[in-house]
């Protein structure tokens, strides 16, 4: 067993002690990991820390974010954390930024002030953003994530180890829109329907509803052959679109009468209409509609009194006396909660109606969404959920405990000390396992992987994009592919004479001109359009990010291969691969030379967990419109609930220790795939099994 000659005895040298106290550290995130990290940093002697966090403190944070007290609820996490830490270590200089790390003030020069950047973030977009800035600023990044009992820490140093985006990151969990709308068969389908479709139609912004309903902005004139089932679905959607205004309360309509009308529309009329579409029920049992009159024969006397006495701030469950959040309500109780909560929204919180976004910390909203979802589940004979479980699913709540965050904070600081002491060969990607899930090990460190030559963030990347250039609009390309899939913030596009940009400082006529291009299909863009073989340059000056997209025109993408209407793959140009593969091979050789790990050491890709539960994305894929190059809609409401981002799933990739001889071959074959392909997902799943974890537990929220 060979370790770095100096590590860890170098920890006790005066040189390192001085370096620790003079170093400047940036902590991104003051939540679960952030609070623990700040404490561990100042107790280790760090003196100069800047802290960025956008969030405010919630009651549900208090079980692990130990710097916060009940009276801090609602205040800035960054500011309170800084203030409390200073009372523990008065000599520490802590600068707090109550802000989003993606704001332009945190630019390259800002990042360059620091010796180390430590992430304790809760969403993939921000992680990718910070990674790009760290790579551009050439500052070491230590990335981390936790979920339940498991967690991980990885180190990213430009030119030495892989960056956060060198390994594929699983894309967010998607649900076919047709399944959500017409043929749900799992509780989560009903919950997503309730939260993203029904709730938004009842209480959300009209434009959000439109975005979701239309699925995508497709260019006019795309026609294709559709299955009979697909046609039936489209018809159903047409009906839904026309009827949007019926979801809103009419002038002078009594709150309870309004709620009753919505109940009857959603669970009786719409359901009967769906049942009538026989094409849908050839292979599956049709749903049943609900009769309010038989569930609640005397609504007036049952609910009127309770509603009348309810005070502002009360919830439907409170006024109905349903106090056990672990209880699974029967149809009758679900109907009572649904009617009361909807009536309470329009009577007590009318100012918010029309602009609401589902918030898992809003009890009344949770009650409405879960009762509505359960009623739908009852129609489809799907098991109902308790309020507690349903809330976890609707809010995509990641399980979080203090102990895991504390351990991870320790492991982060260990890597930070290695970097400051120059013990770079001692750096490890470290994983925390649940007891008995990974043999005897609870904590295991692996050699970090070398950078991947074609990585779009730390290398020079070209990606291959296959789509229908005749039907895909510029707006779709920008929103769904460049911003969503590639996590670009402020895109600048160029291909020959075609140029497009966004961001501050543009003239009004420029903005107008660029906006005029958004609706055009790609082959109708200026300069002759984007065609098969076009190379589109994508830049984000703010992220110091650039890559080339090689476009292939494909008019008949199979829906199974491209549920969202495009295929994005990484590719290293043939001419360069020989050279880069050699370079990679030599790094790998060197790296495995001082590895002290067994060859079969398990290793996770650097996809840290979500620690918290804010800010994320659910992508809904329309599988039915697929033959006309599938439409994808997304809602910006909740979290990144993707199986892979959770280390709870213990995604294993094959061993990091690559035999010297095969390294060359491997780096040729393993082209960079910033987006996990379906083949990759299969591989990840397989490894999950080997890890001994039950993948279904973490993946399938039902």
């Amino acid at each position, binding site marked *: *067993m*060979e*370790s770095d000659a100096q*590590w*860890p*005895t170098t*920890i*006790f040298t005066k040189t390192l002690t001085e370096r620790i106290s003079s170093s400047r550290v940036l902590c991104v995130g003051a939540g679960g990991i952030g609070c*623990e990290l700040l*404490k*561990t940093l*100042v*107790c*280790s002697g760090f003196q100069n820390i800047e802290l960025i966090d956008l969030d405010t403190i919630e*009651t*549900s944070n*208090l*079980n*692990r974010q*130990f710097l916060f*007290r*009940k009276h801090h609820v609602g205040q800035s996490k960054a500011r309170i954390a800084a203030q409390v830490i*200073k*009372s*523990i270590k*008065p000599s520490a200089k802590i600068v707090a930024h109550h802000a989003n790390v993606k704001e332009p003030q945190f630019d390259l020069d800002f990042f360059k002030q620091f010796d180390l950047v430590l992430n304790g973030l809760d969403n993939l977009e921000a992680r990718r953003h910070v990674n790009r800035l760290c790579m551009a600023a050439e500052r070491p990044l230590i990335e981390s994530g936790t979920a339940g009992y498991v967690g991980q820490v990885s180190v990213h140093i430009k030119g030495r180890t892989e960056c956060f985006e060198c390994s594929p990151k699983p894309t967010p969990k998607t649900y076919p829109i047709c399944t959500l709308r017409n043929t749900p068969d799992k509780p989560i389908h009903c919950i997503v329907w309730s939260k993203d479709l029904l709730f938004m139609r009842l209480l959300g912004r009209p434009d959000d509803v439109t975005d979701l309903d239309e699925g995508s902005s497709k260019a006019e004139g795309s026609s294709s052959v559709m299955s009979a089932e697909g046609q039936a679905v489209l018809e159903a959607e047409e009906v839904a679109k026309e009827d949007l205004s019926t979801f809103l309360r009419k002038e002078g309509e009594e709150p309870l009468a309004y709620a009753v009308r919505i109940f009857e529309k959603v669970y009786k009329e719409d359901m009967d209409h769906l049942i009538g579409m026989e094409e849908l029920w050839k292979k599956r049992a049709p749903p049943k509609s609900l009769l309010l009159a038989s569930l609640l024969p005397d609504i007036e006397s049952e609910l009127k009194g309770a509603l009348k006495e309810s005070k502002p701030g009360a919830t439907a469950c409170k006024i109905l006396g349903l*106090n*056990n*959040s*672990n209880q699974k309500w029967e149809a009758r109780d679900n109907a009572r909660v649904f009617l009361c909560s909807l009536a309470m929204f329009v009577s007590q919180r009318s100012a918010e109606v029309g602009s609401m976004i589902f918030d898992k910390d809003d009890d009344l909203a949770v009650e409405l969404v879960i009762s509505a979802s359960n009623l739908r589940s009852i129609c489809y004979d799907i098991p109902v959920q308790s309020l*507690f479980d349903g809330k976890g699913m609707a809010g995509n*709540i*990641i*399980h*979080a*405990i*203090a*102990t*895991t*965050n*504390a*351990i991870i*904070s*320790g*492991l*982060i*600081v*260990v890597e930070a*000390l290695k970097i400051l002491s120059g013990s770079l060969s001692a750096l*490890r990607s470290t994983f925390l396992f649940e*007891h*008995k899930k990974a043999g*005897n*090990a*609870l*904590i*295991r*460190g692996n050699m970090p992987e070398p950078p991947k030559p074609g990585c779009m963030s730390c290398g020079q990347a070209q990606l291959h994009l296959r789509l229908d250039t005749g039907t895909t609009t510029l707006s779709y390309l920008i929103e769904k592919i460049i911003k969503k899939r590639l996590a670009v913030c402020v895109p600048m596009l160029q291909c020959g004479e075609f140029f497009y940009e966004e961001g501050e400082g543009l003239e009004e006529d420029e903005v107008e001109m660029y906006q005029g291009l958004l609706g055009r299909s790609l082959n109708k863009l200026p300069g002759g359009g984007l065609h098969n073989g076009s190379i589109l340059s994508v830049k984000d000056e703010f992220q110091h990010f650039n890559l080339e997209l090689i476009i292939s025109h494909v008019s008949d993408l199979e829906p199974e291969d491209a549920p969202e209407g495009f295929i994005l793959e990484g590719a290293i140009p043939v001419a360069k691969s020989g050279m880069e593969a050699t370079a990679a091979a030599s790094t790998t050789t060197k790296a495995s030379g001082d590895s002290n790990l067994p060859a079969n050491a398990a290793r996770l890709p650097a996809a840290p967990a979500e620690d918290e539960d804010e800010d994320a994305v659910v992508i809904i894929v329309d599988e039915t419109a697929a033959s006309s190059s599938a439409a994808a809609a997304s809602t910006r409401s909740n979290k990144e609930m993707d199986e892979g981002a959770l280390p709870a799933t213990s995604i294993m990739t094959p061993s990091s220790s690559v035999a010297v001889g095969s390294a060359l071959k491997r780096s040729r074959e393993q082209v960079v795939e910033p987006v996990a392909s379906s083949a990759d997902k299969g591989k990840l799943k397989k490894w999950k099994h080997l890890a001994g974890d*039950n993948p279904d*537990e973490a993946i399938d929220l039902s």
Partner: protein
Amino acid sequence: MNAQLTTDESAVYDRQLRVWGLEVQQRLNSAKILIIGGNGIAAEVSKNLTLAGAGLVAIADDTPCGQDKPGNFLISDDSPATSTVAEACACTLQAMNPLIKVKVEAGPHSDTGLKDLELEQYDTVVATDMNFLQIQDLEARCIRLKKQLFACLLRGAFGVTFVNLNSHSYREKAADGQSFESKTLIYSNLEGAMSCPVAKLNKRTHPLYLVSRAVYHFELLNKRSATSMDLPSLQEIAAKLFKSDEVPPNAMYCKANLDLLEAWASHEGVLAPVAAILGGVVANHVIRAVSFEGPPIKNMFYFSLFDNLGVVEDMHV
């Protein structure tokens, strides 16, 4: 099952209820845990158990809080210098979680040692800042009183935990994920853990085992802790224990492990990151032990900065 959680408890504990469930939380609510010592590791463990909602968290450390307690982040700038470390910690812990009871326990006293320490009313004792001799004394009392014992040793680049839960029955989710299975673990005492047959050790055994066993035997012989001056005698003990002619050359006795022994002897300092790591692991397993759900560590846990490896070892005769 016990009464439901209060509204406040449900709101604050929401995220962890999703990790360990209602019943574990209810058992935690009635758990009584004593933490002995007031260094960084005691602060970590008591913080973690306070946040988890252990019904009673008590701290024993009579040292005046003006004295340097490395890494104890529970003592804040405004803690009065006249109070003891335990009092200052208790004050912070109580504010951290008003839903539980936090208590100050007298001792341990420098003259009478651990003998007078009140253990009776607790289910679980977490010992920090003690050498193996003191742990063994405390263990004898814990065995007699049927208390669960977790002992944490923190030294330089190393963290060691010894656990003795006597006979411990717990339940665990069966493979189907629905039903529960009952299991029972019988724990070895410290002496047994440190007398495990050498032939049973192999290269997968955590290298710190050699170190801890040599240190244990040094303390038994010399009735005191080892310092950096004692390295030659520690090496001698290690050779006697592990380099035997009767058994095949043991993987434990190698240069790398002797380097660890040297590092143990020369660096007594406490490192905050190691305290955070060990404190998190120990608290996780205290939660398992007091809730009788899920397998707790049996019976040693070793973590070393030399290899970033943290491993559970079951050591017994």
